[in-house]
């Protein structure tokens, strides 16, 4: 039975996924051991059920992020916060000090105060998801089993963690493998 693997991309730059693709030949081993059932790199619309392992890139920034995260937690055995945005909030969370619990301030700052032309807060209800009051790391919203820090985590670090997980071990990263940034 192959492991049902998912990767998701919340509020982040997709750099962690790029690093994931840098796994090179390990991707072949991975393909033998796991089915990629959901990911930005595969064309599946809805998060499936009974997922064994999910790597989550990005911080929780908007209502869509939160909704899918809740679904992911309900349908997945093991979650991994994948990269600094998921682990710490990182760059996306740098908006928080501009207005904790005040999204209007943040939008005003980004789209009006610092706009070069057409200063206006964009409004597209139902199309652009509502921002959450502030950006949070994944584990503050749902329970997360393991953490894979790095911005992005180097491919070797991703491999170390995933290989241990596929081998059924409790993954252990230490020393520089835990370095933020």
């Amino acid at each position, binding site marked *: 039975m192959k492991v049902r693997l998912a990767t998701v991309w919340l509020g982040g730059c997709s750099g962690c996924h790029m690093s994931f693709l840098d796994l090179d030949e390990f991707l072949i081993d991975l393909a033998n051991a796991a089915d990629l059932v959901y990911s930005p790199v595969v064309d599946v619309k809805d998060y499936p059920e009974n997922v064994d392992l999910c790597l989550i890139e990005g911080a929780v920034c908007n209502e869509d992020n939160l909704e899918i995260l809740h679904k992911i937690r*309900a349908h997945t055995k093991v979650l991994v916060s994948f990269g600094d945005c998921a682990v710490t909030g990182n760059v996306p969370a740098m908006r928080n000090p501009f207005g904790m619990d005040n999204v209007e301030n943040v939008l005003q700052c980004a789209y009006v105060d610092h706009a070069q032309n057409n200063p206006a807060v964009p409004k597209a209800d139902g199309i652009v998801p509502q921002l959450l009051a502030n950006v949070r790391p994944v584990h503050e*919203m*749902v*329970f997360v*089993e393991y953490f894979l820090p790095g911005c992005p985590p180097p491919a070797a670090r991703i491999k170390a963690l995933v290989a241990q997980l596929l081998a059924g071990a409790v993954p252990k990263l230490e020393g520089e493998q835990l370095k933020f940034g």
Partner: protein
Amino acid sequence: MQLDELKAIAEKHRSSRKKIIVRTCMSAGCMSSQADIIKKNLEAEAKAQGLEADVEVRRVGCMGFCGQGPLVGWDNSGEHGLWEFVKPEDAASIIAALKGGECKVQRGDPKHPFFAKQMHIVRANGGIIDPERIEDYIAIGGYTALHHSLTELQPAQVVEEVTKSGLRGRGGAGFPSGLKWGTVAKSPGAKKYVVCNGDEGDPGAFMDRSVLESDPHLVLEGMAIAAYAVGADQGYLYVRAEYPLAISRLQIAIKQAKQLGLLGAGIFESPFNFNVDIRIGAGAFVCGEETALMASVEGKRGTPRPRPPFPAESGLWGCPTLINNVETFANISAIINKGGEWYAGIGTEKSKGTKVFALTGKIKNNGLIEVPMGIPLRQIIMEMGGGAPDGRSIKSVQTGGPSGGCIPADYLDTPVDYESLTKLGSIMGSGGMVVMDDTTNMVEIAKFYMEFCMEESCGKCIPCRAGTVQMFNLLEKITQRKATARDLAKLEELCDMVKNTSLCGLGQTAPNPVISTLKFFRKEYAELLQPDPFGP
């Protein structure tokens, strides 16, 4: 000044006394209800009713029963009485009552357990003498203990007497005073200091304020004896800026003592010199911690430093320094006058003497009491305090302020001594005793204290500075019904860490109110927790 001169002052003062003494409490509590006007009116009435020759209207310090204030007491040929809730317009009928007239003002009962169960050492003169007249203090035997120490005892004998008494620090931690004095005395150094810690910061505590306002010379005399015992010639009395009345009375007291040669150079014509300067705090709870207080005396930010070295070895400006609390110093002259053995006969095996408590909160009889160590908490709360008002029941008694804990009503039979209170997860503390009734939400109380510690953290060490913020946030989350069992576990883990890793007493004890309420009232926390659908 010589002993015969001191005795002459006492004698002259005693002989000039009038027959009837009307004592008007002029401590901060009663002053807030126009005690000054009451005194003025009483004086005017005494004159108007032709009693000027027989009646002395005296300003006195705290009588203790603050919740019934303003208080006016009287002494007439061995008889005593007390009026409560006095208003300025009551002056006429009070003076009239002295000659048997009718008086509708509420009379206090001196046999009430609130008074009857007390034992006065520290507060012996409180509410009796005029704190702004040194003659009053001398007339009741003041400064004879200092004279005795300087002329009859070697410094080591003074330390010995204090050691024998079993007196322990009244600031909260209960360190044996004799041991501390001995260490300072033995520490090498030409310059030594004595510091009196009057930075009574515990919310809900006003023992030291009351002692300083009612009997400032008692504290000064204790400091002078201590200075002689340890070999210091300079003292600092650190008082909170929130106590302006205490500060002004101390200033007066120091001036008077200097004029009579009881402070300053060559006290009692001996080679012993001792000067006291007042240092006024500026609103920082952490300055109650001795190393922070020393930094503040030196004019710096009041941040603590690691101990060792202890102040006894390296204190103010690196010199050996004796730091004791106001109440500790206030016990000294009695110990010298009556002997360490007499003192050791009061209290329990390990906690000697008396302790002053500020009995406040949801209790019928609010005020200041001095009781022998070892008295069961129940006697204090139910008999002296009269239990909870408005027909409610007592839920808990908080002792030790933000460093202490909440003792549940089931444990009211606990004797009040250092060890028993510690065993219950609280501490003796400086003497604040805040009673809570069954309407009190214990999680809110824990949050109240944590907010206090968070705002009073000096910010020097990380566990206290950042840990109190996180603990407060978690408590807030719990009271807002947004927390899960995982949050509570985090809170408990933080309590343990902050307690064990913080630099000073503030951080090390900041988790105590949470730990003790979790121990006895965990159900109240559990009821606020929410399910955790996205948990493990």
